[in-house]
């Protein structure tokens, strides 16, 4: 169940929206129809069927979403049924609710540990996630429990993984990005200020738009936090991490404060050192072809994903602007229609209606593209970075190993501290080998995951585009039939 407290907003903007509880369950206006109660299927689906084929039909209140690999167990938690008021006919539901977690589809199912975010609350400047765990593992006191966590606590968990030497050989699931409603809030505020200068109708339309946008961002941030947890839970080693268990179970505040200035500065330096080091380390040629290849590949891939992600972003945003223009055109046509005295007024009104409807579709196209393409790319940008980090750690340990070798040789030559050098060298060797082994597997998994995720998303993208184009086409053809019939 998603509770969205609009008390978050400065009252000035809130007042015209004082719709009370009805608003908590948004109706299907704008690009993001309701059904926020997607309550993630968590990471618990059975081996995901290779593809989510056609889009799920809109679930009636309370029923299950029958498909979507990621959603298999969404059912019981969908109860809150936010699916009110689908005003645009059956087919205009966006699939973003299913797709939100589809970024990383290939998560191994495991009844032993299921994690999801069952609830989320947006307040003025923070979001509170309700992390819900179901587990049969003996490590936990209960089988099912929930805690409330904030973004900072997720970051803490992530950092603890990164800093843990034992996990050096794994791709650490990338941390979820900070929830950022600033842009949306600004827009809402501006809308509130400009209320006087536009017609009531325009104002309502824009308000709905912005609400939908806000809701979309909200859902996305929840999804990304959830994906992080699911990845951790699915990882054979990481899921056993003590911090993770604490995170899941400890039902009081973890007292994780955000890093203060000093710590942030430290981080900054650490990063600088790391990247400098990375450059040095990457100069070392790797004996292993696999890793050599991976390194080259990842470097290039990462950069290109970055570029593609940025361009995709811009593309979806232009799309959205164009859709917004439809909105304004629709309003103007409506005004023309109501003012005109000739028989063209009916004509104008019909076309205005068309623009309104077509705009909704266009907005959804933009939203879906955002989800299936932009988000996908963004996620893999982060993951490829994590993979790069892994490679760096491995290279680092390789360098250490080689240095230890040299030290050992020197020690043997001097016949001084040989034992020490030997131990040290052995440690390094072990570390290196351990990392190498797990890294190899991780990277292979990464590739599998990546391919699957892309496949799923590209297929869904194509399907959605088709659906929307067909919907649009039908709208236009209907309208034309009516208009031609009249004239």
């Amino acid at each position, binding site marked *: 169940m998603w509770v969205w407290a609009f008390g978050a907003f400065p009252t000035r903007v809130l007042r015209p929206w004082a719709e009370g509880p009805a608003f908590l369950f948004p109706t299907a206006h704008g690009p993001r129809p309701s059904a926020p109660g997607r309550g993630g299927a968590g990471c618990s689906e059975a081996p995901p069927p290779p*593809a989510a084929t056609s889009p799920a039909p809109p679930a009636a209140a309370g029923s299950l979403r029958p498909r979507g690999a990621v959603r298999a167990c969404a059912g019981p938690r969908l109860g809150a049924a936010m699916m009110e008021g689908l005003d645009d006919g059956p087919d205009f539901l966006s699939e973003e609710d299913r797709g939100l977690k589809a970024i990383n589809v290939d998560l191994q199912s495991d009844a032993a540990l299921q994690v999801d975010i069952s609830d989320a609350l947006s307040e003025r400047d923070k979001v509170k996630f309700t992390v819900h765990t179901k587990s049969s593992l003996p490590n936990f006191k209960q089988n099912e429990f929930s805690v409330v966590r904030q973004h900072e606590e997720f970051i803490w968990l992530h950092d603890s993984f990164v800093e843990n030497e034992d996990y050096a050989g794994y791709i650490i699931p990338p941390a979820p990005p900070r929830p950022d409603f600033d842009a949306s809030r600004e827009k809402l505020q501006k809308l509130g200020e400009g209320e006087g200068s536009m017609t009531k109708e325009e104002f309502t339309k824009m308000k709905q738009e912005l609400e939908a946008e806000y809701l979309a961002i909200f859902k996305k941030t929840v999804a990304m936090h959830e994906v992080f947890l699911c990845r951790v839970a699915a990882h054979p080693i990481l899921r056993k991490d003590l911090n993770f268990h604490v995170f899941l179970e400890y039902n009081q505040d973890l007292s994780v404060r955000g890093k203060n200035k000093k710590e942030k500065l430290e981080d900054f330096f650490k990063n600088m050192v790391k990247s400098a080091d990375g450059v040095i380390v990457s100069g070392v040629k790797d004996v292993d072809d696999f890793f050599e290849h991976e390194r080259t*590949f990842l470097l*290039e*891939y990462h950069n*290109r*994903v970055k*570029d*593609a992600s940025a*361009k*995709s972003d*811009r*593309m979806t*945003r*232009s*799309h959205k*602007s*164009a859709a917004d*223009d*439809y909105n*304004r*055109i629709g309003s*103007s*046509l409506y*005004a*023309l229609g109501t*003012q*005109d*005295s*000739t*028989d*063209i007024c009916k*004509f*104008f009104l019909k*076309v205005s209606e*068309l623009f309104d409807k*077509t705009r909704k579709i266009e907005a959804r196209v933009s939203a879906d593209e955002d989800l299936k393409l932009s988000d996908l790319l963004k996620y893999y940008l982060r993951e490829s970075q994590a993979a790069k980090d892994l490679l760096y750690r491995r290279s680092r340990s390789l360098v250490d190993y080689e240095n230890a070798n040299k030290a050992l040789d020197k020690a043997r030559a001097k016949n001084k501290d040989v034992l020490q050098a030997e131990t040290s060298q052995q440690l390094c060797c072990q570390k290196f080998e351990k990392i190498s082994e797990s890294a190899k597997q991780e990277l292979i998994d990464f*590739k599998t995951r*990546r*391919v699957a995720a*892309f*496949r799923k998303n*590209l*297929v869904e*993208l*194509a*399907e959605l*585009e*088709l659906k929307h*184009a*067909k919907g*649009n*086409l039908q709208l*236009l*053809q209907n*309208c*034309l039939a009516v*208009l*031609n019939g009249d*004239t």
Partner: protein
Amino acid sequence: MAAEREPPPLGDGKPTDFEELEDGEDLFTSTVSTLESSPSSPEPASLPAEDVSTNSNGRKPAEVVLDDDREDLFAEATEEVSLDSPEREPILSSEPSPAVTPVTPTTLIAPRMESKSISAPVIFDRSREEIEEEANGDVFDIEIGVSDPEKVGDGMNAYMAYRVTTKTSLSMFSKSEFSVKRRFSDFLGLHSKLASKYLHVGYIVPPAPEKSIVGMTKVKVGKEDSSSTEFVEKRRAALERYLQRTVKHPTLLQDPDLRQFLESSEWFEEKQQQFENLDQQLRKLHASVEALVCHRKELSANTAAFAKSAAMLGNSEDHTALSRALSQLAEVEEKIDQLHQEQAFADFYMFSELLSDYIRLIAAVKGVFDHRMKCWQKWEDAQITLLKKRETEAKMMVANKPDKIQQAKNEIREWEAKVQQGERDFEQISKTIRKEVGRFEAKRVKDFKTVIIKYLESLVQTQQQLIKYWEAFLPEAKAIA
């Protein structure tokens, strides 16, 4: 001729009037009759001829013979004057200017017969004839009714609106029956305009009903009692009588202000307002469509950029199937970018240009309305000038400057023609505008419908193409293993 008429023609039994002045009183009456005859005969000399013709013809009620009789007037004080009052009346009423400007009693008293050249300030020969033709009796064929008092507005800003209905067959009006809504202050305004134009030159302009603050306030406040209804009814009747009297006055009837008051120039005002609104709305719409064109172009550019980026990504992807799919995606996006471009063109050339064309057309329409106003102003100005010229003429008469009088007369003729022309022009332009506006509206409706339908069809095409592209891509995506 004079000899013939030595004996009072009265003996003929002809009903032609013959005035004999015996005393001042008669003098005055004969003055009037003098005036009546003078329009047709500015020269004293011709009067006899007329007189004869009148005598022989008989029936020309408007023609009162009085010519040399004037001489007789003084000479033969004993002559009888028979004044046929009943016959006098039509003459009086048909006389365009009973209280004639240049002629004052004093003029006549002074035995200056030349003053006969007082051409009564008849306004237009044409209308005079018309009036004469129509009126064997009292009225020209125009009837005004004031009805339907309706309260408009609320509280102290309220007022009563009356419907002024005109029924006429006079050709100078474009329709035979029409009505407008006017409020009391409009009537007052009309009167003040007429008064300022005509009173000082001697026309008796019928006064408008009086204001009554008490009465009106009661009405405004909304008392639905008998006293306020009575008040309204009294006022309505008074307004009706006022208008009736005003239109019976041939000179005033010609006045453009009166004409505007009666006729629905509201149509023009309404239309002007409509076009103003339309203009505004079209501008707004145009701005939105321009924004759309701009954003679509942007979208096209961004899609192209993304396509390239996706192609690069596909290249570096080392999983073959995925790599191929990504390249396909890049191709699709490239094609879509083309689509967006074409659509942007359609947006622009069909929709946006149509709108800007119409915005300019409407500016032309507004210009036409402005011209009409100018035309009206010209007419009004000509009329005022004419009155001034008449004034001048009268002054010249008084000052007895024959040469200047002639000049004045010439000028009067000139300005009479101008006024006529002005009125004709105004009516012409009004008629033309009505027709043109109708034509414009019809064209506009057709234009918009055609273009918008074409535009929608272009949107249809785009969607169809999109469907084709994505359908081609889907199997590729599914083929990723």
